[in-house]
């Protein structure tokens, strides 16, 4: 990034090569649509190029990149506000949801190795993920999808680690509520 700021085209080519797939994956996990994800990803790189002068070398580049990516996808999501079904954040303590989960087949049937991620299941999961509130979705996607730690997610989203922990837990509650009939 520092080389790009000094005018190196090759440096930007390298940045793009390293990170474009991550950006596209993040965008599709947040928008749920391939065309929107491509458009959002283009916009993310344009914003990175425009904001290069503001990049602080002391900050981790991926943290900065995902901050830009999250703000960009947020704009795309707001544009489609009102389309499709949205899940509200749970008001209760999720007791019913997790009690239902506890009645699902035993632990062996819910191990990752056992679950067969068919195209139908993936599609349903993507729909359920897209239906989450943006704040919960972003926290869950950044941690589980992009591999950022809770601390890094907190830095990207500008919240505390405890807030990230709660949002990810709530995201799981809502997803399970929507998918309990399919998982298990």
């Amino acid at each position: 990034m520092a080389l790009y700021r000094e005018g190196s085209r090759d440096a930007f080519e390298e940045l793009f090569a390293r990170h474009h797939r991550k950006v596209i994956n993040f965008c599709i996990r947040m928008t749920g649509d391939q065309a929107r994800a491509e458009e959002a990803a283009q916009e993310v790189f344009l914003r990175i190029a425009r904001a290069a002068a503001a990049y602080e070398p002391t900050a981790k580049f991926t943290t900065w990149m995902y901050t830009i990516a999250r703000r960009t996808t947020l704009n795309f999501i707001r544009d489609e506000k009102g389309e499709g079904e949205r899940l509200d954040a749970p008001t209760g303590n999720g007791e019913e949801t997790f009690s239902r989960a506890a009645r699902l087949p035993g632990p062996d049937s819910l191990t990752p190795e056992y679950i067969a991620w068919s195209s139908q299941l993936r599609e349903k999961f993507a729909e359920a993920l897209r239906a989450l509130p943006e704040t919960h979705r972003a926290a869950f996607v950044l941690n589980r999808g992009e591999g950022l730690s809770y601390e890094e997610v907190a830095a990207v989203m500008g919240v505390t680690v405890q807030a990230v922990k709660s949002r990810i837990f709530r995201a799981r509650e809502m997803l399970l509520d929507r998918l309990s009939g399919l998982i298990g």
Partner: protein
Amino acid sequence: MECREIREIVSAYVDGEAHAAEVRAVEDHLGACPACRSLAGTMRVLGDGVGKIEGKVPPGFRDALFDRLEREDLLPRRRSLFAFAVRWTAVPLAAAAALALFILTARETGKGPASPPETLPRVAQGLPGGESHVSAGPGATSGSSASVPPVAGTAPSAGGTGPVDSRLSAESSRFAAEADGGARGLSAEEREIVAYLELLEDPSSLDEPGEVDEMDLFEPAAGRRGSPG
């Protein structure tokens, strides 16, 4: 700890983000609660599901992006081959030019007025005695000057401008010229030394045909070089 209290910690536990004390509490609870153990598995599956969603990178994605970046002047353009060649050859060329200039000026400096004059001993020049380090006079000795080694076989002769001296002069001049051409960068003194070294190697080259080597005078007449017998 009750199930509903520990579920949020279980969520952090399956993500590898629980503190040490929380890990102990969760593992103790999961060991005793099959329902929460099942729940932990379900939470892990939900996390894995995010990774199953992947986008496609269309073929023209990069080109479209870079075109747009160039239009907005956000991407440095590739330097031309000419600029690349100038950039990467200018320094070596300049260094080579400086080295050549240094060598040329060093050679010029060697021939300039500030350098010691290129003078061979007078005897080598075929000139009469005087300032010559090797005096042509009979009283002169070869050790009169430390800078000029005595030429073997050429004792100071009575006549400084005799055939030996002129031949020596010619040979020395020739050797000096060869040394000058073949040993670039030598000072005048060094060229002089080289010339005399050549003579030392083959002093008989100074002999005129038929001339008798003084050392042969002690040998029988039949063995004298150049002697008619």
